[in-house]
């Protein structure tokens, strides 16, 4: 561990590599985390299927990027009405496809499950979405199999200062994530629905009195979250690898970021996400790759403890 840190001191240029890699991946974490902050803040739903939405988006991008035979027929039988060969396209084109698909999926999930947990106690939404997460993982596993997959953007790599590599896809992802985030913020500020969402977040009962259909607002918020996560998944599939069971790590990251940054704090979410991305890279470098995950979960506990210490100043407990 010490010699790894020594390495960073001796060759400061590698700090730049870790930092850049971390920040660029952090931008994608920020997307999923912002989605979580949205549903948590507006609907008080703690969505543990966040990571699964990400992975779903990734698989759609992967599926679009490969040549595949699309068979329209009766499932489970050999009866086929027609078959078409779907040529692979660049997974970047998956973005405009994934966003509406995931939006629709979010809408469906809202009306099947989430609608019933909004007014329930806090634990219900955690466990219900965990159940949903398991179903999504398993269905993805049944469709795509358990092997890791990647989607290839076909973009190259640039070299800075002789030994820092920057994948163009990471830069592009950073830009896309930025644009998506800006769009969402503009939407929340200016559109009728965005205003309704903010009003509902502040006081659902008052919003209802003012004639806002809060059920629709909730459905829209949840669907928006699914769409944002799906977009993050497209980017992830082009940078990292995806596998049906990888969602949990992304969910945990979202929770770490939101718990650390607080709800309704968009700049906080972004800064924390960048920080987490960089911290993971440094943790993996200094401690060894086996601690990369442990760093994330460890950070979750640290953040919770810090929160608790801060709250303890306000609370008095009989001991």
């Amino acid at each position, binding site marked *: 561990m010490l010699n*790894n840190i020594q390495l960073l001191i001796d060759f400061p240029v590698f700090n730049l590599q870790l930092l850049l890699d971390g920040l660029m991946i952090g931008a994608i974490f920020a997307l999923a985390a912002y989605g979580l902050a949205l549903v948590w803040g507006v609907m008080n739903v703690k969505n543990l299927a966040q990571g699964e939405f990400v992975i779903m988006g990734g698989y759609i991008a992967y599926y679009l990027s490969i040549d595949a035979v699309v068979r329209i027929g009766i499932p489970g039988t050999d009866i086929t009405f027609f078959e078409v060969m779907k040529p692979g396209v660049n997974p970047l084109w998956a973005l405009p496809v994934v966003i509406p698909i995931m939006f629709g999926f979010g809408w469906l999930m809202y009306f099947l499950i989430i609608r019933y947990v909004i007014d329930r106690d806090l634990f219900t939404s955690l466990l219900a979405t965990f159940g949903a997460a398991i179903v999504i993982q398993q269905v993805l*596993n049944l469709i795509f199999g*358990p092997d890791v997959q990647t989607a290839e953007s076909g973009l190259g*790599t640039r070299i800075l200062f002789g030994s820092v590599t920057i*994948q163009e896809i990471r830069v592009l992802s950073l830009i896309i994530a930025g644009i998506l985030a800006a769009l969402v913020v503009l939407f929340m500020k200016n559109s009728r629905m965005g205003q309704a969402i903010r009003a509902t977040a502040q006081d659902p009962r008052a919003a209802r009195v003012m004639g806002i259909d809060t059920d629709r607002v909730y459905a829209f918020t949840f669907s928006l979250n699914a769409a944002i996560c799906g977009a993050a998944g497209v980017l992830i599939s082009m940078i990292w*690898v*995806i596998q049906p069971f990888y969602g949990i790590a992304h969910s945990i990251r979202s929770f770490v970021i939101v718990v650390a940054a607080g709800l309704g704090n968009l700049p906080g979410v972004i800064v924390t996400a960048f920080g987490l991305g960089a911290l993971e890279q440094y943790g993996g*470098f200094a401690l060894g790759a*086996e601690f*990369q995950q442990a760093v994330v979960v460890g950070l979750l506990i640290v953040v919770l403890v810090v929160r608790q210490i801060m709250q303890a100043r306000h609370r008095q407990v009989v001991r």
Partner: protein
Amino acid sequence: MAISIGRYTRRGALTIMGVATAALLAAPAAQAKVEGDTIILGSAISLTGKYSTNGIHAQNGYELAVKRINDMGGVKVGGKSYKLKVVYYDDESTPARGAQLAERLIKQDGVQYMLGPYSSGMTKAIAPVTEKYQIPMVEAEGASRSLFTQGYRYLFAVLSTSEQYLASSIALAAEIAEKNGKKPSDVKIAMAFENDPFSQDVRAGVMDDAKKYNMQIIIDDKLPRDLSDMSTTLTKVRAVKPDLLVVSGHSKGAATAARQLAEMKINVPMVAVTHCEAAKIVAKFGATTNDILCPTQWAETLSYSDEYFGTAAEYDALFKATFDGYKNVPYQAAQASAAVIVWKDAFERANSFDRDKVRDALAATDMMTFYGGIRFAPEGNNIAKPMVLRQIQNGTYNVVAPSKYASHPVNWPRKAPGS
């Protein structure tokens, strides 16, 4: 008062419990080890969950050999011909179920002869159970060295053990160093191994070999099980410039390594990665994977042959014709087929279904198969078949070591992809 509520609660509870228990027990009765003219083999294998791709490869391998042997007249014991059949249980890719399922196969299904599960971890979970019941098991997918240090009498493995996976890569690195006027002890090794029983055993093998040549290990990372990024390890690799990078982490390790080596333009003269074929890295990442070394248990280009499948190439063709969707036949399937052949051979030599006679016949196995020679050491591992090292050269896998099997010279040094 609270007590009285408790009691009535209990009555309601009992009714429900009774129904549930009845449902649990309404299942079929036990089968015998040899039913009529069928010999029952049993296997707990990963049909669902994380390892199911390879688990299903192995199952297909078992099934192909069973079908082939049955088509060729079955197993002849005591002048009578018997068919083979395999009972499978899905272990959901978790060792928490492995031992239970082995017990279930033995107790519930009366299985007396076992085929192995997929992965070293599962084999480690099951071997103690089969040993306890003295049920012979021929396994084809658990390579951990530690399986063969415990003095198991009933465990036989057709595949080469874990320390051999990268041994020839290390030997090759030493050879090349000497050719270039350097000492083997100058060779610097970077290691990245998944944190699972198999890869950690491979790592132990590399450590031993490195010690033998006095090589230095300059990076020793464990990759997490849900590996999706190894850029930190590769950044370290770029910083310390090793002569040899070895990576082992099932298919996900191979896929992640192949992709990020290319993307980060990592320049290491020698890179060896396990499970290249399973991860289909050539199809996915094309020319950037050139010159990666891939150890394999078996290759269809090798010159082994037997009476059941003919040559390795003929096995390859038959397998592809039987099962849809295979462009390459993974060695996981080939070794599974070999395990079934070993069983057949042992039954016929024992000429009996007596467990101990069959066990002794297994121990005395000395045969050639399409998969390679099979002869078991007293510990149960196969010592008659070497691993081969292949290199990806212009998109094809060519055998480069050991020299007895090599069809092509090794390309060295490896150029950074795309440079």
